[in-house]
């Protein structure tokens, strides 16, 4: 299994000013959620981690609550190569997040579960076997499982990218 990567969740990205509006606006919005109850409070920490780890850069886009095939994906990011990552957040009870993440793997290049606590060993093994990424956000951000680059259906990946770009434009 991949080693967990931990970065202080309080770290502010040094180059936030260079980000495209959708990402910087997303962080701004997510920081307002940090004091709120529920899953959304994990978002800002995760976004800062992704920027610090350079998974999100100056050409990246981010969109929340992207409507997709009759449901919504909590967070979708698009990097400079056009690769799409989908994130499902869950504070506890990760079964539903795993279900959604499995669905997302048909449409996204990387599919993640972002959990408020450690998943059970069974779920962690499942994530590993299915190539899903797992973050634990709980004061710090830990990448518990590194995702495998998926091979989504090209038509679905392209449609999700377009949908996320439209949603990202709405973030601004």
């Amino acid at each position, binding site marked *: 299994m991949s080693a967990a990567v931990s970065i202080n969740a309080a770290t502010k990205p040094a180059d936030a000013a260079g980000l495209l509006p959708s990402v910087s606006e997303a962080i701004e919005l997510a920081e307002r959620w940090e004091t709120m109850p529920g899953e959304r409070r994990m978002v800002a920490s995760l976004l800062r981690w992704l920027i610090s780890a350079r998974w999100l850069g100056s050409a990246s886009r981010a969109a929340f609550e992207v409507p997709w095939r*009759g449901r919504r994906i909590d967070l979708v990011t698009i990097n400079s190569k056009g690769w799409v990552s989908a994130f499902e957040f869950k504070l506890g009870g990760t079964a539903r997040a795993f279900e959604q993440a499995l*669905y997302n793997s*048909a449409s996204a290049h990387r599919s993640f579960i972002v959990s408020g606590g450690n998943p059970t060993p069974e779920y962690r093994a499942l994530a590993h076997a299915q190539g899903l990424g797992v973050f634990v956000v709980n004061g710090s951000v830990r990448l518990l499982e590194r995702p495998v680059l998926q091979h989504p259906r090209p038509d679905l990946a392209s449609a999700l990218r377009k949908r996320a770009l439209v949603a990202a434009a709405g973030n601004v």
Partner: protein
Amino acid sequence: MFERFSHYLAYGSTDQQTMRDLTGSYDGLIVPGTIAAFQREGTGGFVLSLSAKADAPPYLIDPRFPLFQTAQPDPKQSHYALAALLSGGDPDQLLRAPDAPVPADFDGDLIETVARNWVEFNLSYEELQAAKFNKYAKRLDEDVDQDAAKGPSGIIAPYLVADSDGWWELAKRLYEATAAAAPQGVDVFRVVASPSAANLGLLLADIDDPRLIVWVSDLKELEVQPSRLADYGRAIAAATEGGKDCFALYGGFFSVLLASQGLRGACHGIGYGEHRSWPELSQSGPPPPRYYAPRFHRYINQDLAYQLWSRDAGLTGCGCRICNNGPPVLSYHDLMKHSVFARQAEIERWGNLDLEAAYELLKEEHEELEDDLEALDLPEPLQRPVRRATSHFSAWISALELLAEEE
């Protein structure tokens, strides 16, 4: 409508192209009175241009009268339009608020007025609602002549949910007034609207119509107990035995199974509308984008359909002209069209089976499906939605067993 097994569609947020593509896969159309009254020109143009085609399916207009059985403190524009139409321009006679109406609020004059206006609206539909005929006719991509446009194939009389003896008696008076107002030779159909499956049989036994439409409020085929489904089937069987042909105003695959009890047909929305509740829940918007999974005989979410297909294409694949045995990754309009083709295929396969054959086939299909799902060794997070998607089978099989015990 009463030819076994008639497949009717409810007109809703459907585009002209979709309806055209569905030709041959449904037997008729039911247009909600609310839409017919509110969007008179648009709906009229749409429906009438379709009716002018050589292979036009018949259509009827549903008066949706139970709307006026509850308080309407904040009526939608379409409710207001229907009330205005039925009352002859005085909608407040029907839109009661803040108190819910009681049967005594509907006096003889109001009943006569409603019946007369409704009959007139139906009889003149082809002439008065044709303003946008040409606009919609052009979209059909086929020559249609306005003179060939047809009116409704019959009149559905205003009806009420028989929530009490008072409402049932009033419903009967509304039907009688409508039948009396209609010219000879025009079919007038009664809707027997029951608040429960258990009551339906009593209501059907109280009338003698040879052909009628039935609606059991909130009969969610996928969720209700087998005993309720069996009550419904029992009522249909008794009516059939008594010489009454029944058509279901709303129904999904279980209603197709009830062809074995004599049910002559059922209506559903395109991509939705297999049941309806009274009092109505506030809902709006187009049908959700879901995939009708033929082997499950129900809608499931598209992602689950794809996950299953990617492991075993036979589980959620479909041979209809939209799917062509490919992946269940469809555009919204294709999802809708596929759902109608899939239902039509179900009707062709199941619509002529007797109870024993339907029971045996359903059991066999269920076992095969469970075997195929088990062979997949699905990840645990997918097992739960799959269990939810198959849980109705045992209720349906139990309901058919209960009916078979009585045969």
